[in-house]
């Protein structure tokens, strides 16, 4: 599979994976391994001083995986900027997955606050990968703000509904194509969803719930990697168009009938 470059960083895998919601950290580690991913997302939270618990990073090999901190839980641009700065201070990178989501239960991004935050973060020297809607105009604004990629949802986080509006994603991909990579992030439920995203021309997908909460996360991680690969190869191979009229696959002449 052809390599993907985001902000000068080369990836061999077009499947990025989240570290949340696994039954155990051991299963998480095995699933990341099985997926072949090279970039994983993490969140930033207060240390629980009463019960610090296991450190996530003791289960993630930083030589193997590039860590992408998110701003999950932030409802405003200011909160997202504060969180991103804290994450950067950990000393791993200046990359951030920007998420600005209102506190209304939808888990859909606030496009206005996301664009505002992206602008502030880019000016502060961050490499910004924004989780966004499937609106092509918002995507264009994020590209104009200097984001290193755009990450539209397929559907809302954790819903596993796949891509109910592929034409919207297609329009977004067409608008952004040639500027920055498009990573479909959120809502993927099955490998066929991941394959579809790649067939539409997405450059990568980011999957968390569909792997972490599958019956067998490790097997699902393998399946998702295959789906991403199938979709990318199909995109490069050039699918046939959908046709209103049928045409036979076997010759018309020479039949003995």
């Amino acid at each position: 599979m052809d390599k993907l470059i985001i902000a000068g960083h080369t990836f061999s895998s077009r499947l990025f994976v989240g570290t949340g919601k696994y039954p155990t950290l051991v299963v998480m580690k095995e699933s990341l391994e099985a997926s072949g991913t090279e970039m994983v997302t993490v969140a930033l939270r207060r240390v629980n001083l009463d019960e610090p618990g296991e450190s996530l990073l003791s289960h993630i090999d930083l030589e193997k995986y590039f860590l992408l901190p998110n701003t999950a839980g932030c409802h405003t641009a200011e909160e997202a900027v504060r969180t991103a700065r804290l994450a950067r201070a950990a000393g791993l990178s200046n990359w951030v997955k920007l998420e600005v989501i209102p506190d209304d239960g939808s888990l859909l991004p606030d496009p206005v606050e996301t664009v505002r935050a992206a602008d502030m973060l880019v000016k502060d020297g961050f490499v910004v990968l924004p989780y966004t809607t499937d609106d092509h105009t918002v995507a264009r604004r994020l590209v104009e703000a200097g984001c290193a990629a755009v990450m539209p949802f397929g559907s809302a986080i954790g819903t596993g509904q796949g891509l109910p509006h592929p034409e919207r994603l297609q329009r977004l991909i067409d608008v952004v194509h040639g500027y920055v990579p498009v990573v479909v992030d959120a809502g993927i439920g099955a490998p066929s969803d991941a394959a579809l995203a790649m067939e539409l021309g997405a450059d990568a997908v980011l999957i968390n719930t569909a792997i972490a909460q599958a019956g067998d996360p490790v097997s699902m991680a393998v399946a998702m990697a295959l789906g991403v690969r199938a979709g990318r190869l199909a995109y490069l191979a050039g699918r046939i168009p959908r046709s209103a009229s049928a045409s036979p696959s076997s010759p018309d002449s020479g039949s003995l009938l």
Partner: protein
Amino acid sequence: MNFVLNGKARVAVSDLTVADLLRELELATERLVVEHNARILRADDYADACIGDGDKVEIVRFVAGG
């Protein structure tokens, strides 16, 4: 001396530095990030950052997330 640590009120007998606090909490400092009165500290700053009455300290780290 009263200060706020990770959103909860905490009492210290006397002024202490962030380095003292981390030692007291027995927290390995690798990949932790500390914010003192809205200022993000570097590890080099811990020994000099004095926590005073009414101060707010946040100690955060990376956790599982999507």
